[in-house]
């Protein structure tokens, strides 16, 4: 039973970067698409993001993540293309509905922005071990308890997924149908979700006890088993990202 993570174990420059720098990159790349919203410029940011994915040897792994936002992307193109309020220049028509150039331009900007967001996140999550990221954040002042919550969710969910099969088996053994009309399926929802909910709540009791017994609530300062990793060119990368953002803002103000 593994942990729920999209992390891909590879040896690349991006993998060795500080998770916080990657996090900063996510924030910076999204911010840039707002500071300088021209589609051409956003495409540039997108290109760099894709480049990072390639350098990180995870470009292929990012495709399924991008695919998840396809519905949104299609919806953006269709709705804006046909119905954006500024629409004036006709591109083509399907029967009575007309597809406009202005809407397409707006949609293009939005789609590129979605892609930058998904791409930048992919850089972070495909090349960073979640526990490494959480440990970094804790050392930067995030509450260790929040860190604990995040890491335990990643392990809890695969376990719950495994219980799901057992519950379905148990309720089917008691004559419950899960296929058929909507009403039959609605009726099956409670018997299926009920045991997981009750169990996981009940388990919080035992797990809290176990954590208490391991000093989870200890008031003193916590130490760490893992030694702090040394990240190469950490400050330089972070500084570069900040400078780029500042330059973009200046560009926007004078331009």
């Amino acid at each position, binding site marked *: *039973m*593994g*942990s729920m993570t999209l992390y891909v174990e590879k040896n690349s420059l991006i993998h060795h970067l500080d998770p916080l720098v990657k996090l900063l990159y996510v924030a910076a790349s999204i911010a840039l698409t707002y500071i300088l919203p021209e589609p051409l410029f956003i495409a540039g940011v997108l290109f760099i993001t894709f480049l990072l994915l390639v350098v990180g040897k995870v470009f292929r792994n990012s495709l399924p993540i991008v695919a998840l936002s396809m519905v949104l992307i299609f919806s953006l193109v269709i709705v804006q293309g046909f119905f954006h309020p500024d629409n004036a220049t006709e591109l083509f028509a399907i029967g009575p509905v007309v597809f406009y150039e202005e809407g397409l331009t707006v949609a293009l900007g939005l789609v590129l922005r979605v892609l930058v967001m998904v791409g930048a996140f992919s850089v972070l999550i495909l090349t960073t071990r979640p*526990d490494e990221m959480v440990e970094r954040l804790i050392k930067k002042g995030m509450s260790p308890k929040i*860190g*604990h919550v995040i*890491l*335990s969710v990643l*392990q*809890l969910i695969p*376990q719950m997924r495994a219980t799901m099969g057992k519950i379905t088996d148990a309720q089917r053994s008691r004559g419950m149908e899960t296929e058929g009309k909507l009403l039959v399926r609605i009726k099956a929802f409670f018997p299926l979700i009920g045991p997981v909910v009750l169990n996981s709540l009940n*388990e919080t009791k*035992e*797990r*809290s*006890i*176990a*954590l*208490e*017994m*391991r*000093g*989870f*609530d*200890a*008031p*003193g*300062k*916590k*130490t*760490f*088993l*893992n*030694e702090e990793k040394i990240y190469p060119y950490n400050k330089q990368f972070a500084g570069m990202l900040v400078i780029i953002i500042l330059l973009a803002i200046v560009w926007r103000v004078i331009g």
Partner: protein
Amino acid sequence: MSTIEVENLKYRYPDTTKLVLNDLNFSVEKGECLGIIGENTAGKSTLCYALAGLVPHFYKGAYGGKVTVNGLVVRDHEIATIVENIGLVFENPFSQMTGAKQTVYEEVAFGLENMGLVRQEMHTRIEKYLKLLAVYSVKDKNPFDLSGGQMQRVAIASVLAMEPEVLILDEPTSQLDPQGSQEVFEVIEELTKGGMTIILVEHKMDKIAQYADRVLLLHEGRQVDLDTPENIFSRGDLTDFGLTPPVVTTIAKALGIQYPGTKLYPVTIEEFKRLGEDK
């Protein structure tokens, strides 16, 4: 002063009316193994909670009397302080894993990180207890990928690594298969031999007979008896408390094999054999 002292302990869970622990009085000496037996409703687990400070700090409710562990009055200290003196392992190995650690090694480290130990000391202790519990070979595995018996031994290692004076084992094998139980009992045997102070709650009476120096018999929250295994298991009224003696004792009773000059029956095979031969 004894390692554990319990005086007039009374307890009731919040929003309930019945006392789960009703006027308990006993003490446990350093290096002793105290067995606790009784039906499922006897209050065994609640007593364990009271020794570890979970009662009354985690479970509030109504509380009376005094529990002292290693000189600390449990009522007056936070759980985090008490756990450095007394460790608790319970039946479900699964929910005892923190759930936030990727490897067995890190799992054991969890408590030590919370205690604020320096790194070198952590490594020393983790290695020591993983080896003691015979789970060193799985140190890089995900705790949830272990068998029940292995997981339970990791749970014990995690608690022992905090080096408490006393270890409470609350039905540590009831959710395990025979092989897993065997693994855990081997560890318990090691620990009792090593002079660890242990409180063992167990349904398997032959195991109680084998490891416990004294046995506390509980029934509906009351302390019925506290005596040696021979005395407890020779009682004629055990079924009234929903219990049966170890199989050897039943056989000895049927055959009239006793310690000479007493009304006591043997509780282990070795003693049974010895007395049988003497006779």
